Protein backbone atom coordinates (compact mmCIF):
# COMPACT_ATOMS: atom_id res chain seq x y z
CA UNK A 1 0.00 0.00 0.00
CA UNK A 2 1.10 3.54 -0.65
CA UNK A 3 0.59 6.51 1.68
CA UNK A 4 0.40 10.03 0.25
CA UNK A 5 1.64 12.42 2.91
CA UNK A 6 3.18 15.81 3.63
CA UNK A 7 5.68 16.71 6.38
CA UNK A 8 3.95 18.30 9.42
CA UNK A 9 0.48 17.45 8.11
CA UNK A 10 -2.08 15.24 9.85
CA UNK A 11 -0.84 12.39 7.64
CA UNK A 12 1.91 11.83 10.24
CA UNK A 13 -0.68 10.01 12.37
CA UNK A 14 -1.18 7.39 9.67
CA UNK A 15 2.56 6.79 9.33
CA UNK A 16 2.86 6.39 13.13
CA UNK A 17 -0.01 3.89 13.20
CA UNK A 18 1.41 1.88 10.29
CA UNK A 19 4.78 1.67 12.05
CA UNK A 20 3.11 0.67 15.35
CA UNK A 21 1.30 -2.13 13.49
CA UNK A 22 4.33 -3.17 11.41
CA UNK A 23 2.47 -2.51 8.18
CA UNK A 24 4.98 -1.48 5.52
CA UNK A 25 3.80 1.50 3.47
CA UNK A 26 5.44 3.09 0.46
CA UNK A 27 5.63 6.83 1.18
CA UNK A 28 4.73 9.28 -1.58
CA UNK A 29 5.38 12.90 -0.58
CA UNK A 30 2.89 15.50 -1.72
CA UNK A 31 3.35 19.24 -2.17
CA UNK A 32 -0.02 19.96 -0.65
CA UNK A 33 0.09 23.71 -1.43
CA UNK A 34 0.79 23.19 -5.14
CA UNK A 35 -1.33 19.98 -5.14
CA UNK A 36 1.47 18.18 -6.97
CA UNK A 37 3.37 14.96 -6.51
CA UNK A 38 7.16 14.98 -6.81
CA UNK A 39 6.97 13.91 -10.45
CA UNK A 40 4.80 16.98 -11.14
CA UNK A 41 1.54 15.07 -11.55
CA UNK A 42 -1.76 16.44 -10.28
CA UNK A 43 -2.63 15.37 -6.72
CA UNK A 44 -6.33 16.05 -7.27
CA UNK A 45 -6.31 12.89 -9.41
CA UNK A 46 -5.43 10.94 -6.26
CA UNK A 47 -7.67 12.87 -3.88
CA UNK A 48 -10.34 15.18 -5.36
CA UNK A 49 -10.40 17.08 -2.05
CA UNK A 50 -6.69 17.90 -2.43
CA UNK A 51 -5.99 16.86 1.16
CA UNK A 52 -3.51 14.49 2.74
CA UNK A 53 -3.41 11.72 3.80
CA UNK A 54 -4.59 9.34 1.10
CA UNK A 55 -3.92 5.61 1.20
CA UNK A 56 -3.75 3.62 -1.99
CA UNK A 57 -5.06 0.16 -1.21
CA UNK A 58 -3.74 -3.08 -2.68
CA UNK A 59 -6.53 -3.09 -5.28
CA UNK A 60 -5.53 0.40 -6.44
CA UNK A 61 -8.47 2.23 -4.82
CA UNK A 62 -7.80 5.38 -2.82
CA UNK A 63 -9.03 5.87 0.75
CA UNK A 64 -9.01 9.38 2.25
CA UNK A 65 -9.59 10.90 5.72
CA UNK A 66 -6.89 10.19 8.31
CA UNK A 67 -9.18 8.95 11.11
CA UNK A 68 -10.66 6.41 8.69
CA UNK A 69 -7.33 5.26 7.27
CA UNK A 70 -6.03 4.49 10.76
CA UNK A 71 -9.16 2.38 11.42
CA UNK A 72 -8.65 0.56 8.12
CA UNK A 73 -5.03 -0.22 8.95
CA UNK A 74 -5.72 -1.31 12.53
CA UNK A 75 -8.69 -3.49 11.55
CA UNK A 76 -6.39 -5.28 9.13
CA UNK A 77 -4.39 -6.52 12.11
CA UNK A 78 -7.00 -8.11 14.42
CA UNK A 79 -6.00 -8.35 18.05
CA UNK A 80 -3.83 -5.24 17.97
CA UNK A 81 -3.74 -2.93 20.98
CA UNK A 82 -4.31 0.26 18.99
CA UNK A 83 -8.00 -0.26 18.15
CA UNK A 84 -10.20 -2.93 19.77
CA UNK A 85 -12.63 -4.94 17.62
CA UNK A 86 -16.16 -3.74 16.77
CA UNK A 87 -18.63 -4.55 19.53
CA UNK A 88 -16.12 -3.99 22.33
CA UNK A 89 -16.94 -0.83 24.29
CA UNK A 90 -13.25 0.06 24.29
CA UNK A 91 -13.48 0.54 20.51
CA UNK A 92 -16.13 3.23 20.82
CA UNK A 93 -14.01 5.03 23.38
CA UNK A 94 -11.19 5.18 20.84
CA UNK A 95 -13.61 6.36 18.14
CA UNK A 96 -14.97 8.99 20.54
CA UNK A 97 -11.45 10.41 20.97
CA UNK A 98 -10.62 10.14 17.28
CA UNK A 99 -13.67 12.22 16.47
CA UNK A 100 -12.90 14.80 19.14
CA UNK A 101 -9.37 15.20 17.81
CA UNK A 102 -10.57 15.43 14.21
CA UNK A 103 -13.33 17.94 14.79
CA UNK A 104 -12.35 20.04 17.79
CA UNK A 105 -8.55 19.97 17.69
CA UNK A 106 -7.67 19.50 14.04
CA UNK A 107 -10.39 21.77 12.69
CA UNK A 108 -9.63 24.15 15.55
CA UNK A 109 -6.15 24.66 14.11
CA UNK A 110 -7.24 24.93 10.48
CA UNK A 111 -8.12 28.67 10.56
CA UNK A 112 -4.61 29.42 11.91
CA UNK A 113 -3.04 27.77 8.86
CA UNK A 114 -5.14 29.69 6.33
CA UNK A 115 -3.46 32.95 5.27
CA UNK A 116 -6.87 34.52 4.57
CA UNK A 117 -8.12 34.15 8.16
CA UNK A 118 -8.55 37.63 9.68
CA UNK A 119 -6.62 38.48 12.83
CA UNK A 120 -9.74 38.84 14.96
CA UNK A 121 -10.80 35.29 14.18
CA UNK A 122 -7.29 33.96 14.84
CA UNK A 123 -7.64 35.08 18.45
CA UNK A 124 -10.97 33.25 18.74
CA UNK A 125 -9.47 30.12 17.20
CA UNK A 126 -6.59 30.25 19.71
CA UNK A 127 -9.02 30.67 22.59
CA UNK A 128 -11.05 27.68 21.37
CA UNK A 129 -7.88 25.59 21.29
CA UNK A 130 -6.92 26.69 24.79
CA UNK A 131 -10.32 25.44 26.03
CA UNK A 132 -9.70 22.05 24.38
CA UNK A 133 -6.16 21.86 25.76
CA UNK A 134 -7.49 22.47 29.26
CA UNK A 135 -9.95 19.60 28.88
CA UNK A 136 -7.22 17.28 27.57
CA UNK A 137 -4.94 18.33 30.42
CA UNK A 138 -7.65 17.43 32.94
CA UNK A 139 -8.19 14.01 31.35
CA UNK A 140 -4.46 13.29 31.20
CA UNK A 141 -3.95 14.18 34.87
CA UNK A 142 -4.86 10.63 35.85
CA UNK A 143 -3.89 8.51 32.85
CA UNK A 144 -1.00 8.28 30.39
CA UNK A 145 -3.10 8.05 27.21
CA UNK A 146 -6.49 9.30 26.01
CA UNK A 147 -8.43 6.11 26.66
CA UNK A 148 -6.42 5.05 29.73
CA UNK A 149 -3.30 2.93 30.06
CA UNK A 150 -2.88 1.96 26.41
CA UNK A 151 -1.63 3.89 23.37
CA UNK A 152 -4.33 3.90 20.68
CA UNK A 153 -4.82 5.24 17.16
CA UNK A 154 -6.44 8.27 18.81
CA UNK A 155 -3.15 9.08 20.57
CA UNK A 156 -1.25 8.94 17.28
CA UNK A 157 -3.71 11.44 15.84
CA UNK A 158 -3.83 13.66 18.93
CA UNK A 159 -0.02 13.86 19.12
CA UNK A 160 0.17 14.79 15.44
CA UNK A 161 -2.25 17.65 15.86
CA UNK A 162 -0.73 18.87 19.13
CA UNK A 163 2.63 19.23 17.35
CA UNK A 164 1.03 22.06 15.38
CA UNK A 165 1.11 24.15 18.55
CA UNK A 166 4.85 24.63 17.81
CA UNK A 167 4.09 25.94 14.32
CA UNK A 168 1.81 28.58 15.85
CA UNK A 169 3.98 29.42 18.87
CA UNK A 170 1.47 28.05 21.35
CA UNK A 171 3.36 27.15 24.52
CA UNK A 172 1.94 24.01 26.19
CA UNK A 173 3.49 24.94 29.58
CA UNK A 174 0.11 26.02 31.08
CA UNK A 175 -1.04 22.40 30.57
CA UNK A 176 1.69 20.26 32.19
CA UNK A 177 -0.16 16.95 31.81
CA UNK A 178 -0.61 17.64 28.13
CA UNK A 179 3.05 18.61 27.72
CA UNK A 180 4.11 15.39 29.48
CA UNK A 181 1.77 13.41 27.21
CA UNK A 182 3.36 14.91 24.10
CA UNK A 183 6.83 13.98 25.41
CA UNK A 184 5.62 10.45 26.25
CA UNK A 185 4.25 9.85 22.75
CA UNK A 186 7.28 11.48 21.10
CA UNK A 187 9.54 8.91 22.78
CA UNK A 188 7.89 5.97 20.99
CA UNK A 189 10.09 4.36 18.30
CA UNK A 190 7.22 4.56 15.78
CA UNK A 191 6.94 8.31 16.27
CA UNK A 192 10.70 8.88 16.08
CA UNK A 193 10.90 6.87 12.85
CA UNK A 194 7.92 8.65 11.27
CA UNK A 195 9.33 12.06 12.19
CA UNK A 196 12.76 11.09 10.83
CA UNK A 197 11.11 10.12 7.52
CA UNK A 198 9.54 13.60 7.42
CA UNK A 199 12.90 15.27 8.05
CA UNK A 200 14.51 13.29 5.24
CA UNK A 201 11.68 14.15 2.88
CA UNK A 202 12.10 17.83 3.64
CA UNK A 203 15.86 17.63 3.10
CA UNK A 204 15.51 15.79 -0.21
Amino acid at each position, binding site marked *: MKLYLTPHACSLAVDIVARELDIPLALEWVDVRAKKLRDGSDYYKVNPKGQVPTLQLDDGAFLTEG*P*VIVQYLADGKPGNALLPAPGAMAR*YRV*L*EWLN*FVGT*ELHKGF*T*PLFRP*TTPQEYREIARQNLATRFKWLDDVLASQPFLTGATFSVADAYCYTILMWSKLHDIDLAPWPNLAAYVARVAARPSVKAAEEAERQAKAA
Partner: protein
Amino acid sequence: MKFFHESHGCSLAVDIVAREIGIPLEIVWVDMQRKLLPDGTDLYAINPKGQVPSLQLPDGQFLSEGLAIMQYLVDQRPDSDLASTARGAEKYRVLEWMSFIGSDLHKGGFMPLFKKTTPDDYRPLARQLVVSRMKLLDEHLADRDYLTGPVFTIADAHCYAIAMWTHYHDIDLAPWPNLSAYLERIGQRASVQAAKAAERVEAKRQGYEGKV
Protein backbone atom coordinates in the same frame (compact mmCIF):
# COMPACT_ATOMS: atom_id res chain seq x y z
CA MET B 1 -30.96 4.16 26.63
CA LYS B 2 -31.14 7.89 27.31
CA PHE B 3 -30.23 10.06 24.36
CA PHE B 4 -29.24 13.69 25.01
CA HIS B 5 -30.46 15.58 22.02
CA GLU B 6 -30.88 19.15 20.78
CA SER B 7 -33.60 20.24 18.40
CA HIS B 8 -31.93 20.95 15.02
CA GLY B 9 -28.52 19.91 16.33
CA CYS B 10 -26.18 17.43 14.69
CA SER B 11 -27.72 14.92 17.12
CA LEU B 12 -30.60 14.59 14.61
CA ALA B 13 -28.40 12.11 12.74
CA VAL B 14 -28.27 9.82 15.78
CA ASP B 15 -32.05 9.90 16.19
CA ILE B 16 -32.53 9.02 12.51
CA VAL B 17 -30.12 6.09 12.79
CA ALA B 18 -31.78 4.75 15.95
CA ARG B 19 -35.20 4.90 14.29
CA GLU B 20 -33.89 3.25 11.11
CA ILE B 21 -32.58 0.24 13.00
CA GLY B 22 -35.36 0.08 15.60
CA ILE B 23 -33.42 0.87 18.76
CA PRO B 24 -35.75 2.77 21.10
CA LEU B 25 -34.07 5.77 22.71
CA GLU B 26 -35.43 7.85 25.53
CA ILE B 27 -34.88 11.41 24.34
CA VAL B 28 -33.68 13.97 26.88
CA TRP B 29 -33.82 17.42 25.30
CA VAL B 30 -30.94 19.71 26.17
CA ASP B 31 -31.20 23.49 26.36
CA MET B 32 -27.95 24.25 24.55
CA GLN B 33 -28.20 28.01 25.11
CA ARG B 34 -28.01 27.51 28.86
CA LYS B 35 -26.34 24.06 28.76
CA LEU B 36 -29.05 22.62 30.99
CA LEU B 37 -30.99 19.38 31.11
CA PRO B 38 -34.78 19.53 31.61
CA ASP B 39 -34.43 18.87 35.36
CA GLY B 40 -31.99 21.76 35.71
CA THR B 41 -28.87 19.57 35.79
CA ASP B 42 -25.75 21.06 34.20
CA LEU B 43 -25.01 19.45 30.81
CA TYR B 44 -21.32 19.41 31.75
CA ALA B 45 -22.16 16.84 34.44
CA ILE B 46 -22.91 14.26 31.76
CA ASN B 47 -20.64 15.58 29.00
CA PRO B 48 -17.58 17.54 30.16
CA LYS B 49 -17.32 19.02 26.65
CA GLY B 50 -20.81 20.54 26.97
CA GLN B 51 -21.95 19.12 23.65
CA VAL B 52 -24.72 16.97 22.23
CA PRO B 53 -25.23 14.19 21.34
CA SER B 54 -24.48 11.97 24.31
CA LEU B 55 -25.84 8.48 24.79
CA GLN B 56 -26.21 6.86 28.17
CA LEU B 57 -25.48 3.17 27.73
CA PRO B 58 -27.34 0.39 29.60
CA ASP B 59 -24.54 0.20 32.19
CA GLY B 60 -24.80 3.94 32.90
CA GLN B 61 -21.68 5.07 31.01
CA PHE B 62 -21.95 8.05 28.67
CA LEU B 63 -20.73 7.95 25.09
CA SER B 64 -20.26 11.24 23.24
CA GLU B 65 -19.37 12.22 19.62
CA GLY B 66 -22.03 11.50 17.01
CA LEU B 67 -19.77 9.40 14.80
CA ALA B 68 -18.88 7.08 17.67
CA ILE B 69 -22.51 6.84 18.81
CA MET B 70 -23.78 6.00 15.32
CA GLN B 71 -21.18 3.26 14.92
CA TYR B 72 -22.02 1.91 18.37
CA LEU B 73 -25.72 1.76 17.46
CA VAL B 74 -25.34 -0.01 14.10
CA ASP B 75 -22.93 -2.48 15.65
CA GLN B 76 -25.77 -3.42 18.07
CA ARG B 77 -27.97 -4.42 15.13
CA PRO B 78 -25.68 -6.38 12.83
CA ASP B 79 -28.61 -7.70 10.77
CA SER B 80 -30.14 -4.32 9.90
CA ASP B 81 -29.91 -2.86 6.40
CA LEU B 82 -27.97 0.07 7.78
CA ALA B 83 -25.39 -2.21 9.34
CA SER B 84 -24.87 -4.11 6.09
CA THR B 85 -22.72 -1.19 5.06
CA ALA B 86 -20.96 -1.19 8.42
CA ARG B 87 -18.94 -4.29 7.57
CA GLY B 88 -16.24 -5.20 5.14
CA ALA B 89 -14.48 -2.87 2.77
CA GLU B 90 -17.56 -0.71 2.21
CA LYS B 91 -17.52 0.30 5.85
CA TYR B 92 -14.49 2.53 5.28
CA ARG B 93 -16.23 4.31 2.41
CA VAL B 94 -19.12 5.09 4.77
CA LEU B 95 -16.70 6.32 7.44
CA GLU B 96 -14.77 8.35 4.88
CA TRP B 97 -17.88 10.38 4.14
CA MET B 98 -18.70 10.75 7.81
CA SER B 99 -15.25 12.10 8.55
CA PHE B 100 -15.55 14.64 5.74
CA ILE B 101 -18.99 15.74 6.92
CA GLY B 102 -17.99 15.96 10.57
CA SER B 103 -14.74 17.81 10.06
CA ASP B 104 -14.99 19.83 6.85
CA LEU B 105 -18.69 20.55 6.64
CA HIS B 106 -19.80 20.66 10.29
CA LYS B 107 -16.74 22.03 12.11
CA GLY B 108 -14.81 23.77 9.37
CA GLY B 109 -17.84 25.09 7.51
CA PHE B 110 -20.99 25.65 9.55
CA MET B 111 -19.68 25.96 13.10
CA PRO B 112 -18.26 29.50 12.74
CA LEU B 113 -21.55 30.64 11.16
CA PHE B 114 -23.46 29.56 14.28
CA LYS B 115 -21.11 31.23 16.77
CA LYS B 116 -22.26 34.71 17.72
CA THR B 117 -18.66 35.71 18.46
CA THR B 118 -17.49 35.03 14.89
CA PRO B 119 -16.45 38.39 13.42
CA ASP B 120 -18.22 39.61 10.30
CA ASP B 121 -15.05 39.54 8.25
CA TYR B 122 -14.69 35.77 8.78
CA ARG B 123 -18.28 34.85 7.86
CA PRO B 124 -17.92 35.14 4.06
CA LEU B 125 -14.88 32.83 4.27
CA ALA B 126 -16.81 30.23 6.29
CA ARG B 127 -19.74 30.47 3.86
CA GLN B 128 -17.36 29.92 0.96
CA LEU B 129 -16.05 26.77 2.68
CA VAL B 130 -19.61 25.48 3.04
CA VAL B 131 -20.37 26.29 -0.60
CA SER B 132 -17.27 24.50 -1.91
CA ARG B 133 -18.17 21.39 0.08
CA MET B 134 -21.79 21.49 -1.07
CA LYS B 135 -20.51 21.60 -4.63
CA LEU B 136 -18.31 18.57 -3.99
CA LEU B 137 -21.31 16.65 -2.60
CA ASP B 138 -23.46 17.71 -5.55
CA GLU B 139 -20.91 16.45 -8.06
CA HIS B 140 -20.54 13.19 -6.19
CA LEU B 141 -24.31 12.64 -6.09
CA ALA B 142 -24.73 13.16 -9.86
CA ASP B 143 -24.72 9.42 -10.51
CA ARG B 144 -25.78 7.81 -7.23
CA ASP B 145 -28.75 7.94 -4.85
CA TYR B 146 -26.71 7.93 -1.64
CA LEU B 147 -23.16 8.84 -0.70
CA THR B 148 -21.75 5.33 -1.06
CA GLY B 149 -24.13 4.04 -3.74
CA PRO B 150 -27.68 2.66 -3.86
CA VAL B 151 -28.08 2.05 -0.10
CA PHE B 152 -28.87 4.60 2.66
CA THR B 153 -26.16 4.49 5.34
CA ILE B 154 -25.25 6.22 8.59
CA ALA B 155 -23.21 8.65 6.48
CA ASP B 156 -26.39 9.79 4.75
CA ALA B 157 -28.15 10.34 8.08
CA HIS B 158 -25.17 12.44 9.14
CA CYS B 159 -24.97 14.40 5.88
CA TYR B 160 -28.69 15.15 5.98
CA ALA B 161 -28.60 16.50 9.54
CA ILE B 162 -25.74 18.87 8.73
CA ALA B 163 -26.93 19.93 5.27
CA MET B 164 -30.26 21.03 6.82
CA TRP B 165 -28.32 23.88 8.43
CA THR B 166 -28.19 25.64 5.06
CA HIS B 167 -31.74 26.78 5.89
CA TYR B 168 -30.48 28.57 9.00
CA HIS B 169 -27.89 30.51 7.09
CA ASP B 170 -29.96 31.27 4.01
CA ILE B 171 -27.78 29.20 1.75
CA ASP B 172 -29.89 28.37 -1.29
CA LEU B 173 -29.53 24.76 -2.44
CA ALA B 174 -30.75 25.57 -5.98
CA PRO B 175 -27.23 25.62 -7.50
CA TRP B 176 -26.85 21.98 -6.45
CA PRO B 177 -29.77 20.01 -7.95
CA ASN B 178 -28.30 16.57 -7.19
CA LEU B 179 -27.77 17.52 -3.56
CA SER B 180 -31.28 19.02 -3.33
CA ALA B 181 -32.86 15.86 -4.77
CA TYR B 182 -30.80 13.75 -2.37
CA LEU B 183 -31.97 15.73 0.66
CA GLU B 184 -35.57 15.50 -0.52
CA ARG B 185 -35.17 11.75 -0.99
CA ILE B 186 -33.88 11.36 2.56
CA GLY B 187 -36.52 13.75 3.92
CA GLN B 188 -39.20 11.30 2.79
CA ARG B 189 -37.92 8.43 4.92
CA ALA B 190 -40.22 7.51 7.80
CA SER B 191 -37.30 7.66 10.26
CA VAL B 192 -36.44 11.21 9.22
CA GLN B 193 -40.03 12.41 9.34
CA ALA B 194 -40.49 10.96 12.83
CA ALA B 195 -37.21 12.43 14.09
CA LYS B 196 -38.05 15.86 12.68
CA ALA B 197 -41.58 15.77 14.10
CA ALA B 198 -40.06 15.15 17.54
CA GLU B 199 -37.71 18.12 17.01
CA ARG B 200 -40.53 20.45 16.03
CA VAL B 201 -42.47 19.64 19.18
CA GLU B 202 -39.41 20.40 21.29
CA ALA B 203 -38.53 23.57 19.36
CA LYS B 204 -42.03 24.87 20.00
CA ARG B 205 -41.84 23.96 23.68
CA GLN B 206 -38.51 25.81 24.03
CA GLY B 207 -40.06 28.77 22.29
CA TYR B 208 -38.11 28.86 19.06
CA GLU B 209 -39.61 27.85 15.76
CA GLY B 210 -36.97 26.29 13.60
CA LYS B 211 -36.94 26.97 9.90
CA VAL B 212 -35.89 23.43 9.23
